[in-house]
């Protein structure tokens, strides 16, 4: 009988303690919250382009030329955030795809137009289309006539 009474008292005490802990935890959590929105997932865009060059240029040359032009006109901070990468490039046709962070697509398109030299050769890079998936970018790449 005594054992039963003791266990009942302990159970009630543990329930009260749990309630107090939850209230305390919520208070601490509210203090830690800064009211800022969580950083969203970085979305990407794929820009299909064509490089019209006087001679063949490699993928590395095109990527370096785009990077240098972006740094020159918009600065290193924009370049770091945009992080343009040439992920597909066909040397024979000069067509390729650049991946960029979605918020910096305009910077990339402007940069492509301003790029005049790649690998020491005169080049003119023309953006063709911007897509949200690599699959669609590949389709455009194969269908493009430029």
């Amino acid at each position, binding site marked *: 009988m005594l054992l039963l009474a003791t266990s009942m008292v302990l159970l009630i005490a543990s329930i009260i303690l749990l309630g107090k802990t939850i209230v305390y935890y919520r208070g601490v959590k509210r203090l830690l919250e800064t009211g800022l929105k969580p950083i969203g997932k970085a979305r990407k865009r794929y820009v299909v382009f064509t490089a*019209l060059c006087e001679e063949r240029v490699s993928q590395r040359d095109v990527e370096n030329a785009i990077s240098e032009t972006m740094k020159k006109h*918009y600065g290193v901070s924009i370049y770091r955030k945009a992080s343009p990468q040439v992920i597909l490039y066909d040397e024979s046709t000069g067509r390729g795809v650049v991946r960029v962070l979605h918020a910096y697509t*305009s910077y990339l398109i402007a940069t492509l137009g*301003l790029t*005049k030299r790649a690998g020491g050769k005169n*080049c*003119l890079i023309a*953006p063709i289309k911007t897509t949200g998936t690599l699959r669609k970018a590949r389709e455009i790449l194969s269908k493009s006539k430029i």
Partner: protein
Amino acid sequence: MCAGCIFLKPRVFVDSFVRKCNTRLLNIAWIIGYRALSCEELEVGGDLGKSIDSPRVLRKIVISSNSVSEVRNKLAGVNYKSMFVTVEPLSMEVARWSAHDTRVDTILITSRNTELFDKRQLGIMKYYSKPLEIPIPYLLGEDGAESALYRRIRLYASSRVPLVISSMATHWHELIHPYSLLKFLKLSYDIPERIGLLTVSDIPWFIISRKEGV
């Protein structure tokens, strides 16, 4: 209306100032979307610009002077009805005079004459709807004084003076894709894409379409 819908309407992109036109430059210009060019020097003759897959070509003359009488004399020997006439004023008198002369199609702003484009000049150019031509090398800051240009472009664009952007290209690789140009104007000079589009399409095309032989 969606933001990108302005590009759905087919546009005639025009480059209103190319220094040297040759076959290669014309082919590249056609590929990247230009349908009319205004060339200072033509390196090929014959039926240039008359074929289906080649842009229309108009001769261009640029008159740089600091005296009104000199500009008048040069204009007297120019067939302005079939040529694109641009004046680069080097003095205040020439700037004011060329703003109201009907033979002058555009007024060129360069690093040599930026200070001439003040509010009074703006008023005259707005009254006579005289377009202000801005070469891309100057926009890119290759000549220096970009901040002065930025202030003037903002002032003139906000006052609805027609603007014309030209490449001033000597070689084919100096051309710039019109879509890239719009983005560049938006990012570097805060010109909205809707106004930027007019500077490379409707405004220069309106000038060129008035000329004979186009």
